[in-house]
């Protein structure tokens, strides 16, 4: 991550080209992280944009290297998610469920089908039912595409802990999805 280290240092000194390169490097992973958590592509795109505006506004306060920077960006994304759900829970104008529901145009309504395919909304709900640590590992690994070592660095955990969390998280998630009637070949 030496080049990210250099980009972060340059961006903190006001180099817009370096900041743009950091955006290009991290935006896809952050978008997919939010997509996995929200289960809605358009909301995830909007939130990813907000995350990077916040990164731009707070970069001058960041202290660390490239690895720490990536961890920091994902922390901002997690906080933005938490803020979104807190705000939704407080609104009284309309009860808003931020937990994604199965879309109306899903292939088959649940009540008409014994088993159904895996879809983003169902997985997003299932993710909220496993522990936060397991969820972070699964989403960073399989949505954002981080390696085990990169995931360990972002979360500040030992590699062995990340492997264990991945194993337990996948097992728990699979049980939950089976309970929701997801089809397994």
């Amino acid at each position, binding site marked *: 991550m030496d080049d990210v280290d250099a980009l972060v240092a340059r961006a*903190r*000194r*006001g180099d*817009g080209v370096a*900041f*743009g390169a950091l955006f*290009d490097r991290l*935006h*896809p992973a952050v978008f*997919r992280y939010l*997509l*996995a958590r929200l289960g809605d592509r358009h909301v995830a*795109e909007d939130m990813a*944009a907000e995350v*990077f*505006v*916040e990164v*731009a*506004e707070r970069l001058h*306060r960041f*202290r*660390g290297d490239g690895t720490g920077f990536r961890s*920091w960006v994902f*922390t901002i994304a*997690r*906080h933005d998610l*938490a*803020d979104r*759900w*807190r*705000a*939704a*829970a*407080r*609104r*009284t104008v309309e009860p808003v*469920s*931020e*937990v994604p529901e199965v879309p109306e145009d899903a292939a088959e309504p649940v009540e008409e089908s014994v088993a159904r395919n895996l879809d983003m909304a169902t*997985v997003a709900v299932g993710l*909220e*039912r*496993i*522990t*936060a*640590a*397991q969820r*972070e590992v*699964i989403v960073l*690994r*399989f*949505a954002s595409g981080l390696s085990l070592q990169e995931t360990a660095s972002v979360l*500040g955990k030992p590699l062995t802990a990340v492997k264990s969390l991945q194993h*337990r998280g*996948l*097992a*728990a*998630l*699979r049980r939950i*999805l089976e309970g929701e009637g997801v089809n397994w070949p």
Partner: protein
Amino acid sequence: MTEREREPEQELAGRLEGLWAVETSPDEVSGARSAALAAFGAVRRRRRRRWALAAVSAAAVSLGAVSAAAAQDAMPGDATYGLKLGMERVEIGLARGDEAEAEAWLDIAETRIEEVERAGAEERFSLLPEILDGYSDAVAALRPRVDAVEATQPDAEVLARSARELRIHDGVLSALLEVVPPQARPGLERARDATRGPRGDVGVPPHVRLPEVPPDTGPPPTVPAPEGEGAPGRPPAPAPSRETAPPGPPEERPYP
């Protein structure tokens, strides 16, 4: 674990990867990139302006640029902290109009939050009361100016920036509440209340009525939470040490 036992997990992992392998549309990426770069540029201009004001203030009291730079990183108790506060007063004095004054007070609130983060990271909790008083004063001065701008310029950038920044400040203060000694908590809670304002929340449109809700509410509990390590449904608390470092020479240099 045997290879056979791993198969269901690997199968799920593969399906998840396929499910989430979604590309954003080029237009969306371009729009997001432009917005982020615009924000980056705005922050850079604000910090240049503040540094220029600091240099002017330092010159007015016959101090050099080095002293002005050192003052910008000063914490309560440091020899140059008084100069830092003095430069902020100059900045307020030079602002003309509600929008400019709101920007200036928001800059000062931002600076106090940076000091809070640094005090927390360095465990210099004795500094918090003075910093938090300054933060609460800045937010108290900010709010009527934001209200005035909202009444006449509902699309002004400072309104969106104010909502965004105060929301971030709320998060910083809430996170610090989890690590400070008990005697520091009341001051932090007061500052967080100031951040949330009279409506009790941050950045919520005035027409939305808010019930009393515990501040750490996670996603709406539509399903029961399982047992396991950690607390399901809640994001991990931020690590202040990742965002700040032990004090050192100022890393920012004056821009040409």
